[in-house]
């Protein structure tokens, strides 16, 4: 591409609105054109500055009292409506995502099992739509950007590596790391590969809402992880004080346990700093 073709597309390029092929063509042009590169750098600098200034402004942040009141109002509103008119899973997804911010201000123990079910569903959905089919409605973002926008847990997991990358069935590789959203639930998403199968390691905030016991199918290999089958995938899970981690894959139980056993320690140590 030449400058006259690239310049009209620079705005959309910086806004990440272009098709992959066009983006790649522009990237190739920028590697050899200092002028266009300077324009892109300037726009990106301004965009980053806007995001930072607006995103971190205390004047634009909600009061904790408002969030508590809002949580109560939404619970009242939801309880007032006849359950048959709401899809239970849909209500749990939006209510869980809206209530999480309040934390311990609202008594949520009776939600533990339902919240966990919603998280599990979201984790499986994220694996399916992000890792397998690349069809998430909202594009994933780099962990560095997510750390700036949403908090430090994203930065803590940016460099975590398995204890060993050579397992009984061959190499275990970390393919990608990013932050992504499925049905309103944001995850830190680490995609691994073992025996030619992708494994999604999905980390979500626990916010102290989940009970200490997780569901299990069969005895956990190490006493701290549980494995279940959900929507056709094998799912292993473990938790830290403030986060729950799902490993979703088509691997069988044994292989999934092997993968989780080598990544659970590093992830847990990283999350301990959250």
């Amino acid at each position: 591409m030449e400058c006259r073709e690239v310049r009209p597309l620079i705005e959309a390029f910086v806004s990440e609105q272009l098709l992959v092929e066009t983006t790649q063509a522009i990237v190739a042009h920028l590697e050899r054109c200092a002028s266009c590169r300077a324009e892109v750098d300037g726009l990106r600098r301004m965009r980053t500055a806007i995001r930072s200034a607006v995103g971190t402004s205390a004047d634009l942040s909600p009061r904790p009292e408002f969030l508590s009141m809002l949580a109560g109002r939404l619970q009242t509103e939801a309880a007032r409506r006849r359950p048959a008119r709401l899809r239970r899973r849909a209500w749990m997804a939006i209510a869980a995502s809206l209530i999480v911010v309040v934390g311990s201000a609202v008594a949520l123990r009776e939600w533990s099992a339902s919240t966990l079910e919603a998280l599990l569903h979201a984790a499986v959905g994220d694996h399916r739509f992000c890792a397998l089919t690349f069809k998430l409605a909202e594009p994933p973002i780099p962990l560095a950007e997510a750390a700036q926008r949403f908090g430090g847990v994203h930065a803590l997991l940016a460099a975590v590596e398995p204890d060993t990358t050579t397992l009984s069935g061959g190499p275990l590789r970390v393919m990608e790391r990013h932050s992504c959203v499925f049905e309103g639930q944001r995850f830190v998403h680490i995609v691994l590969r073992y025996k030619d199968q992708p494994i999604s390691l999905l980390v979500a905030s626990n916010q102290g809402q989940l009970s200490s016991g997780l569901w299990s199918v069969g005895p956990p290999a190490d006493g701290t992880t549980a494995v279940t089958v959900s929507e056709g995938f094998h799912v292993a899970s473990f938790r830290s004080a403030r986060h729950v981690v799902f490993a979703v894959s088509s691997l069988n139980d044994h292989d999934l346990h092997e993968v989780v056993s080598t990544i659970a320690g590093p992830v847990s140590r990283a999350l301990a700093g959250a």
Partner: protein
Amino acid sequence: MPHVDRLFRLAMWWERDRREAEDLVQDALVQALQSFHRFTTGTNCRAWLVTILQHVRSNRRRSAMRRLAVEHPDDRIADHVPFVPAVPQQLTDEDVLGALRGIPELYQDIILLCDVEGLTYKEIADALTIPIGTVMSRLHRGRALLRKQLASSRTVQTDDPEDLTSSRGTR
């Protein structure tokens, strides 16, 4: 939690009054809860919530304000590209927020939804009920005005007729 915090941030930017912003967010989320059966699984939930927030905001403004024959002359793409200064290397939060407030509201909205909230052009078009082409032209014009604001943020505003802020100001 991203949804409520980010919805509030938008509402607070628009309303500039904490109570009004809280009311706006609360009304929008109650509406969202009531109409969640219309949400399509797998699509961008946050963009859907932003759309509802914008509609609640529009309805409030329509009922509170007189109808004005408002024309947005800058919706058409400029026939020529005016000189746009380079983005300064050092940008403080104060510079950026002041410059953003200094451009017309219709450009502020586009920049917030695109650059801060990360919505796609289609999602912005749906939220604001405008064509995608209008989204693109407003974003282009808004960013150009913002760059001019940033470049002149430490100088006295000129009487440049191309500079809309001298005639329109902010909300």
